[in-house]
């Protein structure tokens, strides 16, 4: 397995790795080679965005990090404890809630499955529901909520165990722009409060520059890392950041990198 990864920029963030994928390959039984020689390090405390054209293997990489899929080749090193709900929170593209359970029960699920006591689980779930801005909605059913609120429930469920690592697979892709911006800000606030490491898959260059400390660009067929952008944000990441020239310039760079990656993944 040869490594197809070539980094255009060295990683200046010197934090130790939270999780490393080393030369990871993944082929599905259908014969699709989703990943080949993927080298990817998520550093402790960073906000990493995974950016790449559709089908390049971002979800596959995320699932391998979560331990939900096994790599066909290469190794995965976890420095955050075992791959379970206590150390990893996962947010899917859809809210993925249990429609028969109330918001509180949905948020509590990881604690219930881990055998946390009833009263304690209840208290922690309620606290997290408040943290994501859904105070008072604990007894609602998912279908009574808007798309943005459902995504908040999903976020609360992922955070309720206070995981070290939060893996998010295009979580806000289905939301309208206003809702998406608001959730972006709330996500940054939650991250500041809990200090968790985040790996965030997105299609949107704007979103990746706004949120991430570092953007890893992937190209597909098979999936590998083709570029890396360290995002520089002088001030706090607020709506004002979106108006700066630096933001625009970095979005342009990210866009060029993805366009290049997309061209490289064209079926030949």
């Amino acid at each position, binding site marked *: 397995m040869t490594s197809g990864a070539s980094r255009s920029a060295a990683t200046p963030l010197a934090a130790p790795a939270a999780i490393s994928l080393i030369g990871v390959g993944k082929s599905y039984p259908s014969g699709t080679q989703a990943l080949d020689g993927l080298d990817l390090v998520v550093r402790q405390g960073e906000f990493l965005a995974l950016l790449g054209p559709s089908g390049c293997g971002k979800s596959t990489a995320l*699932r391998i990090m*979560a*331990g*939900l899929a096994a790599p066909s080749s290469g190794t995965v090193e976890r420095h955050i404890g075992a*791959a*379970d*709900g206590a150390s*990893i929170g*996962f947010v*899917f593209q*859809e809210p*993925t809630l*249990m*429609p*028969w*359970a109330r918001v509180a029960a949905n948020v509590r*699920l*990881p604690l*219930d*499955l*881990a055998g946390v006591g009833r009263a304690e689980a209840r208290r922690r779930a309620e606290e997290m529901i408040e943290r994501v801005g859904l105070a008072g909605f604990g007894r609602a*059913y*998912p*279908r009574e909520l808007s798309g943005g609120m459902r995504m908040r429930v999903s976020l609360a469920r992922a955070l309720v165990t206070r995981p070290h690592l939060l893996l998010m697979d295009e979580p806000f892709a289905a939301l309208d722009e206003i809702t998406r911006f608001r959730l972006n800000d709330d996500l940054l606030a939650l991250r500041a409060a809990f200090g968790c490491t985040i790996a965030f898959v997105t299609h949107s260059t704007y979103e990746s520059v706004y949120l991430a400390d570092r953007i890893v660009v992937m190209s597909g067929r098979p999936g590998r890392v083709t570029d890396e952008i360290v995002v520089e944000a002088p001030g706090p990441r607020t709506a004002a950041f979106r108006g700066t020239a630096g933001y625009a310039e970095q979005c342009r760079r990210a866009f060029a990198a993805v366009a290049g990656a997309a061209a490289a993944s064209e079926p030949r």
Partner: protein
Amino acid sequence: MRLGHGARILSWAMPVLAFAGALLAWDLVVRLNGIPPFILPAPALVAATLVSDWPILSASLWVTLRTTLEALVVATAGGVALAVVFAQSRWIALSFYPFAVILQVTPIIAIAPLLLIYLSPDAAVLTCAFVVAFFPVLSNTLAGLTSVDPNLRDLFRLNRASRLAELLRLRIPAALPSFLVGLRIAGGLALIGAIVAEIAAGSSGQGSGLAYRIVEAGYRLNVPRMFAALALISIAGVVIYGSLALLSHVLLRRWHDSTVARDG
């Protein structure tokens, strides 16, 4: 569409009126053509027979209903239990599902005579009703148990859920809607199975359910009583279906999309 108050009343009144109209037409046909009761009794005569023969008919109704309900309960318990077992192991499902299919596709009326040799008439009738009610519960519950949102399954896996926890917290609630669909079908089929088996048993001179009354009254050309028994069977079928639909509505109304009032 949004139903206003008037429209809601109409939505009840229209079918009732249509039904009354059909009865009236029936009555007119009998009256104007002077059809004798032993060929086609008027609705009023059927109603009168229902009252006069009530002691005998109610006893038979009870027999048929009891058979139907017992069969439904056993079929539900058996169907759900087997579906849970099948959902746990693909190999068990693969090996034994064909048996259930064979049992399902063989017309029950063809199995009944054999069962009547092996079993007492009561047990044979019960078995027939069970056999036809069993499959829809099994197949619908199994479909529900095995078609769980794969992301939710991943979430359970990530959280190291045991098989039992996954079954209780994920698969069973997810299967509830399709189980209830199966149950509704099974309710109707259990009644049909019981009636069919009663007729098969009745021709050999046993049994006392409603179907037996129909066969017996047929021999005596007591057509009004045939109609009265038939009416009771129809009503029983409607009541069974209605109560199962109500049960389903009560269990699902808070969360399932099938019960969302899009106009509400």
